[in-house]
């Protein structure tokens, strides 16, 4: 269960991946809100200020997950982030970590790994405060 008022923001351009991820997270009692692009998430300022965790796909057309992280950093938004990548690329992982991703997962991601990653990201945020 997500702690009170916490939300999981899922950003993925693939409708099936997005929808199915939402269902899995909801089956664990989590409160999920999803976005089909990085741009759409950037428009939702309430979400960025909100209390929760961003689950972000790296590989998206136009704005990539990494570019979204850079944009968030620029706006001093410190939402905890779990990034999901399709390719185990060490260079990409390093850039994602620098850009503020707490956890980076390779696809395909098991629900156990995803949950653990979200918990970890949220916990890091807590201890940072």
């Amino acid at each position, binding site marked *: 269960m997500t702690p009170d008022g916490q939300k999981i923001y899922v950003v993925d351009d*693939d409708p*099936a*991946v997005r*929808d*199915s*991820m939402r*269902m*899995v997270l*909801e*089956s*664990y009692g989590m409160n999920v809100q999803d976005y089909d692009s990085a741009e759409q998430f950037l428009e939702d300022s309430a979400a960025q200020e909100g209390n929760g965790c961003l689950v972000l796909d790296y*590989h998206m057309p136009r704005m990539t997950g990494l570019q979204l992280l850079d944009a968030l950093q620029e706006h001093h938004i410190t939402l905890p982030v779990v990034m999901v990548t*399709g*390719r*185990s690329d060490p260079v990409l992982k390093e850039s994602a970590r620098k850009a503020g991703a707490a956890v980076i997962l390779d*696809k*395909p*991601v*098991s*629900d156990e790994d995803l949950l653990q990653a979200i918990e970890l990201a949220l916990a890091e945020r807590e201890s940072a405060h």
Partner: protein
Amino acid sequence: MDYRARFEALITAAADGIVVIDAAGLIQVYNTACEQLFGYPPRDVVGRSVKMLMSATDQEKYDAYLDSYRMTGQHGAVSPSLETVGQRKDGTTFPMHVSLGEGQSPDGNILVAIIRDITERQNAQRQTQELQHELLHVSRLSAMSEMSSALAHEVNQPLAAITNYLRAAQRTAVNINDPAIVKVREILEKTLAQTARAGQVIRRLRDFIEKGETNRVIENLNSVIDEAMGLALIGAGDTGVRPQMEFHPRAPNVLIDKIQIQQVVLNLVRNSIEAMQETETRDLTVRTMIEGDFAQVTVMDTGPGLHPDVAGRLFQPFTTTKGAGMGIGLSISKRIIESHGGRMWATPNLEAGVSFHFNIPLSV
């Protein structure tokens, strides 16, 4: 000089072998160049059958031709030029090009053959073909790996969704002890296992593509580029392109898979040549440089430059402005360079056209 003397001087001076035979196939004229080609002095040859200058296979064909001529009294059509095999005095053979012409002399029909040794031309052709085959093979392999990689990503997405949906279904049905639901949970479990199996296949494919098999050796980048240019410029003669090579004097040593790097150069140079077919000035400059710990190669053209539509996704697969081609050349090239620890990028030129650059770490 009378006609005959002039004729003989001409034949003697000719760089190509000249043989004249009469209607019976006996050698009448055998010039100095022929001595070099076949190794016989004229006295061993003149008056004898032309068969002695032919390989065994050609001798048979010639006999058959003569038989048919005797039976029908008809000449078969004599092809004006052919490539065949000659035989020297010492029994060795060599590829030769023969031009034939029929004529009339006071003594009857004659046949004139002008003969050229084409051993070197054939060797050069063979070498070029071998290298081209190798490059073609590598480029097919790279195209395949590029497509498999794209495919792996495309399949992984629905696979990820399937796994998520199955897990969600499993968790929704948890703690319900209706026998039908218990059965459904068992089926879901099995489906998940099979989905995981498919995921494994994709993962293994992806690992294989990313590691790939390469054969890296320390090479002098200048000579690697020089050789690749030679290949790329084959057939560039009629494209009006003026190539210029500027090599760094301290020949940079790099640890590379030579064929792969040559494929990148070939690809860039061919792109440039193609791009410049639309422009008046067609200057192609290929330059090697040393920048810090990297050797850098630049391929510069004076073509129309990059279209803004394409510039942003230049290195993505399936991007092309050409009528033919799949648009994966640059994405493959970039991948090759990155696997060598280098970078690839493009910049517009001040005057005209575009420059493609790549770098590779210098080998110590």
